[in-house]
């Protein structure tokens, strides 16, 4: 229909998101999982993400600086390339410098990658363009990774600990000395069959639990930087119980901690028991409180307290002199790591295990004096359709979807990856909605919802929308199999005032009724304090057991946009609207379902003027008259009220009120509704067939409602040299114009994109399976400005624009006649407008005024003034 002649150029950038990296989480033999670094002045902490390093100020709890790998070519190669390394250690200063006398600069940090590279970066000021990068891992074996770097500041020595997986449970550790003069590593010690390791917080002692040839488990403790052999201790792992009949869980050590002066060793077991060994006399005592695996342990620096955490989501403090306990409950995730930073802070590594499709890590920094949360670090928390590769779960006494048990440790991740590789369906799609007013990204996350600010790259809020066990406490043992309600979909009304959430509740497992899911629709209003408040809850909106397959919010022309449509998997459709008088949402219109036909390919579209609804069900699109809530022109054979597509419809979008974009399992079509004809079609089959669950292709498509641009994501499995599929993915983002006749952009991205959404402005925001957020956005050059302003010809609600412009004109003229001080007022207003950025993208150049002087004859002074204003404002 109405097409503007000038197209803005789109470009793609991965600019936000990312997830916190727990580098050692994948390595079961390491007790400490997280890596953080307190800066020189102890006011900030550096946290590694999978796409950047973030510096958080401890004072303001805000991120004060990000070092994005993507901004530097070398770092991109190191940390972002396919199958690349992770950050495995960060140290202050340039630790690799050849001459020890050389001063290191205050703002430098050395970042160790798991492959053995060291990069020296500035964490203040500008990122170094060519950072110093050393490759120390030249003589590493394949698969060998750096897990820890030990520093001895007194002697200025450096040791690097690496590990190589032997079998699913045991590792070979190698300890290297760093030779400054040669800038290389020299192996100094090897530990075979390491099951578990721990080191003291001051980097002086190392403890490893090894399995010897007779399958006996021995503890080996040694100092790291002093050569005296008499401090090396080796003794068998003491048993926690005397009875031999107990389960393997009571023998399975899950976590270890060693105190700073090598006097005490704590070993946590899968059964929940902590064995505290006095290393002087080898006496031991048992600390019992945990009822599932102890996942994290650490001593305070004076060795008087032991911190422990596990599945309970509670951090426990043991006063070792009295055996008294204190708790910090209601943490947001399972405590997989705890450590003491510089006596002043506790750092907790938390994992939200309810999301079994991804490892959701959060880092919490607590002040050790008042235990107030100082900094909470997390990226976007996303739930994917199927678990992505390299997901790691903590060990539990029982096996469940969100935990690994001691017995299935043997099931290696390799097996899981093979399964992933073989599977045809590669549906890692995810749900993401953008709030129209605040532009916050909303991620449904199990029974909660996370609001995320794309531009600040910070979590805004995390709110539970459904009640479950998880909201207040952790689940342990058999509770792990209880499934909390899941937020399956979330939508926002166009005015941004309402949130509509759809949740699925699961009955307990192993019952006859286990498959009887219950469905709930909830309507939330934004309260003044920024929380969503539940206003209306509808149980089983489409009848008992009937799911809601699609939700569509009303256009602005219907009930002030306070309405929505829901469709079930049987062809039924319902219209819900907010009723001002009863202050409640209610069912307003019902379209009855089919008899015996069920399908998950259900999609909805609504014309901007609210008159027509397009209801795609399986391979048919039915046009409904919204007022009558019946098929449009029912009974008339010739009316254009039904479309049969070539296969099940996966996504429909109404663009510019005249084109219906229909994606089926085989094709992508643009249907011109005014002519009733299919205009352009594209072959989707190779990229869609069987890859996505029915209906999920809609997550890969979005439409800019202002100008009708359509974005489509294509994910492909990357092929290796032999043209065999690998676990890696590449993706394309295609941007089309409203009727698909023109391709305005084609961008590549190196990871699977799981969702793309229009941000109610000019950009499309996408999420990839590394939790990174990117934007496909337009750049507007000044010469196009005039056209851009008029792009919204289709917007029926814009006639007021004319009114307002007219009003502006008349008032501006009126103000001319006013007294001088009033004129100043007006000026202030316009300045204010300028600050608000409404017009800030306008650029004035020497050509801006040229058109003004054409036809200047007979123009009144006022008109001339207006023209000037028009150009500059």
């Amino acid at each position, binding site marked *: 229909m109405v097409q503007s002649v000038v197209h803005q150029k789109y470009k793609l950038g991965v600019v936000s998101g990312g997830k916190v990296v727990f580098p050692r989480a994948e390595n079961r033999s390491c007790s400490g999982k997280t890596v953080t670094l307190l800066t020189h002045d102890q006011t900030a902490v550096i946290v590694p993400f999978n796409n950047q390093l973030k510096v958080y100020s401890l004072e303001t709890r805000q991120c004060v600086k990000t070092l994005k790998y993507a901004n530097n070519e070398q770092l991109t190669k190191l940390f972002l390339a396919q199958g690349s390394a992770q950050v495995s250690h960060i140290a202050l200063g340039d630790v690799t410098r050849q001459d020890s006398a050389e001063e290191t600069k205050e703002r430098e940090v050395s970042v160790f990658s798991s492959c053995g590279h060291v990069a020296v970066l500035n964490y203040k000021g500008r990122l170094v363009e060519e950072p110093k990068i050393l490759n120390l891992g030249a003589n590493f074996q394949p698969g060998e990774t750096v897990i820890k770097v030990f520093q001895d500041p007194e002697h200025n020595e450096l040791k690097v600990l690496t590990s190589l997986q032997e079998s699913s449970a045991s590792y070979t550790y190698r300890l290297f000395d760093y030779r400054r003069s040669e800038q290389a590593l020299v192996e100094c010690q090897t530990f075979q069959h390491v099951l578990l390791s721990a080191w003291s917080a001051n980097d002086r002692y190392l403890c490893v639990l090894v399995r010897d040839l007779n399958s006996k488990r021995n503890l080996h403790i040694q100092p790291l930087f002093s050569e005296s052999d008499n401090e090396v201790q080796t003794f068998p792992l003491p048993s926690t119980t005397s009875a031999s009949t107990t389960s393997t869980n009571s023998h399975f050590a899950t976590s270890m901690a060693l105190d700073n002066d090598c006097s005490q060793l704590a070993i946590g077991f899968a059964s929940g028991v902590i064995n505290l060994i006095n290393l002087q006399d080898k006496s031991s005592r048992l600390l019992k409180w945990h009822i599932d695996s102890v996942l994290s342990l650490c001593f305070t620096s004076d060795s008087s307290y032991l911190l422990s955490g596990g599945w309970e989501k509670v951090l426990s403090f043991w006063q070792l002199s009295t055996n008294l306990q204190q708790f910090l409950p209601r943490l947001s995730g399972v405590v997989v790591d705890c450590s003491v930073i510089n006596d002043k802070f506790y750092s907790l590594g938390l994992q939200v295990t309810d999301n079994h499709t991804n490892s959701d890590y959060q880092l919490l920094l607590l002040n050790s004096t008042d235990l107030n949360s100082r900094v909470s670090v997390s990226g976007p928390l996303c739930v994917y359709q199927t678990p992505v590769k390299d997901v790691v779960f903590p060990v539990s006494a029982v096996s469940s979807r969100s935990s690994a048990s001691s017995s299935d440790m043997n099931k290696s991740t390799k097996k899981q990856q093979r399964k992933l590789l073989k599977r045809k369906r590669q549906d890692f799609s995810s749900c993401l909605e953008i709030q129209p007013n605040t532009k916050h990204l909303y991620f449904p996350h199990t029974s909660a919802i996370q609001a995320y600010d794309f531009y600040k790259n910070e979590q805004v809020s995390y709110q539970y929308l459904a009640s479950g066990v998880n909201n207040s406490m952790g689940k342990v043992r058999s509770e792990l199999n209880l499934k909390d309600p899941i937020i399956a979909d979330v939508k926002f009304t166009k005015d941004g005032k309402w949130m509509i959430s759809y949740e699925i509740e699961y009955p307990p497992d192993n019952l006859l009724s286990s498959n009887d899911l219950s469905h709930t629709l909830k309507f939330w209003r934004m309260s003044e304090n920024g929380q969503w408040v539940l206003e209306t809850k509808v149980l089983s909106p489409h009848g008992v057991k009937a799911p809601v397959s699609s939700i569509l919010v009303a256009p602005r022309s219907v009930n002030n946009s306070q309405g929505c449509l829901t469709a079930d998997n049987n062809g039924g459709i319902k219209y819900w609207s907010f009723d001002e008088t009863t202050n409640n949402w209610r069912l307003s219109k019902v379209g009855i379902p089919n008899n*015996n036909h069920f399908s998950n390919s259900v999609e909805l579209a609504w014309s901007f003027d609210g*008159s027509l609804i397009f209801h795609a069900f399986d391979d048919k699109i039915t*046009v409904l008259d919204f007022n009558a809530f019946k098929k449009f022109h029912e009974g008339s054979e010739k009316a254009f009220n039904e479309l049969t597509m070539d*296969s099940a419809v996966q996504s429909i979008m109404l663009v510019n009120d005249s084109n219906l974009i229909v994606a089926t399992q085989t094709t992508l079509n643009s249907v011109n509704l005014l002519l009733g004809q299919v*205009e352009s079609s594209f072959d989707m089959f190779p990229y869609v067939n069987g890859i996505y669950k029915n209906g999920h292709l809609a997550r890969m498509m979005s439409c800019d409602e202002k100008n009708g641009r359509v974005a489509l994501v294509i994910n492909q499995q990357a092929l290796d040299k032999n043209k065999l599929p690998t676990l890696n993915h590449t993706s394309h983002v295609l941007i089309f114009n409203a009727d698909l006749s023109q391709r305005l952009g084609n961008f590549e991205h190196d990871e699977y994109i799981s969702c793309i959404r229009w941000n109610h402005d000019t950009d499309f925001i996408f999420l990839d399976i590394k939790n990174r957020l990117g934007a496909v956005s337009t750049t507007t050059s000044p010469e196009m400005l005039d056209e851009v302003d008029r792009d919204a010809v289709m917007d029926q609600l814009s006639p007021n624009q004319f*009114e307002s412009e007219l009003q502006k004109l008349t008032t501006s*003229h009126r103000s001319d006649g006013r007294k001088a001080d009033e004129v100043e007022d007006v000026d202030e207003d316009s300045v204010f407008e300028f600050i608000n950025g409404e017009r800030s993208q306008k650029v004035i150049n020497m050509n801006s005024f040229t058109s003004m002087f054409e036809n200047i004859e007979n123009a009144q002074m006022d008109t001339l003034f207006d023209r000037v204003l028009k150009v500059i404002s």
Partner: protein
Amino acid sequence: MPSISQPFRLTALPKIASLNNYASQANLLQVADTLTPSTNYINVGISGSAISQYVINPTPKLVYNLPISSTNVVNACDVAQLEDDEVWCYALQANKTFSIHCLQKPVSSAPASDSHFGETYASNKIAVSDQPVSVKVIGAKKTIVTVLRSGLVQFYDYSLKLQYSFDSSYKNVQFVQHFTNESKQDFVFILSDIQGKKVSFKLLELAQPDAAVPAKELSSVILEDFQLKNSEIFYQFGKIYRLHGKSIDVYTLPYFQHSHTISLPFLSKGETSFKPISQNRALLTCDNQLYLLDLLHNAILSHRELTHVKTFQLLTTAVVPGNFSANNKTIAIGVSTKHGANPTSSLDIVNIDVGTGTLKDSMGKGFSPQNTKSKHLQPLLDENSDVENYEYDYDQILEQLRKAAGNVDKFDSIFFPKLGIKQDYYTESDRFINDQNFLRNVASTIFENFNSQYPKALPYLLTHPLFPKSHTQDILQRLKDHPRLFKQAIVTCPNLSLDELLQELFTVLNDELCLDLSLRILQDFNKDIIKETIKTKSKIDVNNFISFVMNDNIDEDRIKNKPRLFQLLNLVLDSVGLFSLGDETLAKLSDYIEQQLKVVKQNVELFNLLEDKNIKNISNQNQTDVSASNEGIIAAYSIEQLEL
């Protein structure tokens, strides 16, 4: 639904040659621009005849008449109603002298007779220097605003005393439009021709004549390459539409910026007129064709051809404000001129329903030219060369197929290899055959040329999801003699009509087909539609079906189909009502249901027994199979449903 009704006559025009001339008649007939959709009064100045007021309802009638000299031309005419009075203002031209007249009179009600022209309070007259292009009575300001050809904007009071004059500085004013905004401010814009294909646009704000500045220039634009001469222009809700040639240019106020161009490919060469009717909608005439256009969606909402006249020219329309108003009915006034050497003209009124202005009204009625780009399935990614892609020369294949029409083997030997079809049913690799026109043409060719024996292409087409809807009408009837095709159509052909399917179901005697039909009906349609359609069926058919269901048959298909037959029986009984059945049928029905209930009870007991046994010999593997097969029957219907 948007519609244009047949025009009816307001009055016949005097037999003056220029009134029959299309080019001049619009200038000679000045209808006061006061029409609203609900108006009953029409004021019109007819050059050389009279200034008249008509009522439309209950029957078009003259209620006030003010004769003018036969040499006088009415340049402009406007009326404003002030409580019970009306203020009339009109501009007359007699040769080169121009005058403005103003009169006040009570609102007329009685029909005017020749002797009685109605009561008049006051009548004033003033001579002006140039031709008035527009007069406007602004009731709220008690002012008359006139715009002269010379560019003067003059303010008069009702006694025609000049209050204020403003020079818009461009001569040769061609178009003047008054409008008010939401806050009831009055505006006027003036378009004047400038030499060299230029036009000046000026937007003025009108204030009280006693205000400091009664007319204020808000914006002034010079438009290049813009001719008013061959354009039809109107203003509507902040936009200006300009028809010239076969396209409409849309401009937005207040700066007169060009927004977009709409081309009208359907428009033939002829005499056109173009008037607004509602938001984004306009009336367009071309000779005797009358179009109601949606200019947002580019659709012809309604079209009427006035066969009894040669031309119909729109004079004024009553504009329906906004999009969603409850009242969509309005009127348009035009002048129609009959055929012939000595034509007559008359003022006609057309009733128009403007519709809702929504997509609903425009669906499938678009007039934009079709996208001529290839209809082939295009690859999504260019660089990916190893993705298969086919393009067919549909025209050529169709040509060959038409040549082979009548010969089954020859037809198939072209159809399958040319389109690269490997199976004799549709598979996803045939997705490249997606041209609906082609499929329609092939289907037409087959149905037109084959009768007794169909080529294999037909069963293939019947499995194609894009089988043209136009050919699904009566397809079952047509294929009835070909059992395989008949069954194929029932099972796979898309868009079968429910009417036809039910007809077949009610007359079917074959249990296998009955199964297919009932599956298809219950799959494709919802209960309401099925019930509605059953109501249209003859009673005999319905009775036949009921007895068919009751006729207990132990055929395997029948048993498989039982749950669906019950569903259908349920729907049939719901829609025809139990009491419309004969006593005999009812008795039979109740017997039958009782008997079925017995079977159900028996089955339940058996099932329980089996289950007990299952629990006892849990090790026995065979047991699970038995229970699984029974489960289907038990679960498929429940007792509650039958008690309806």
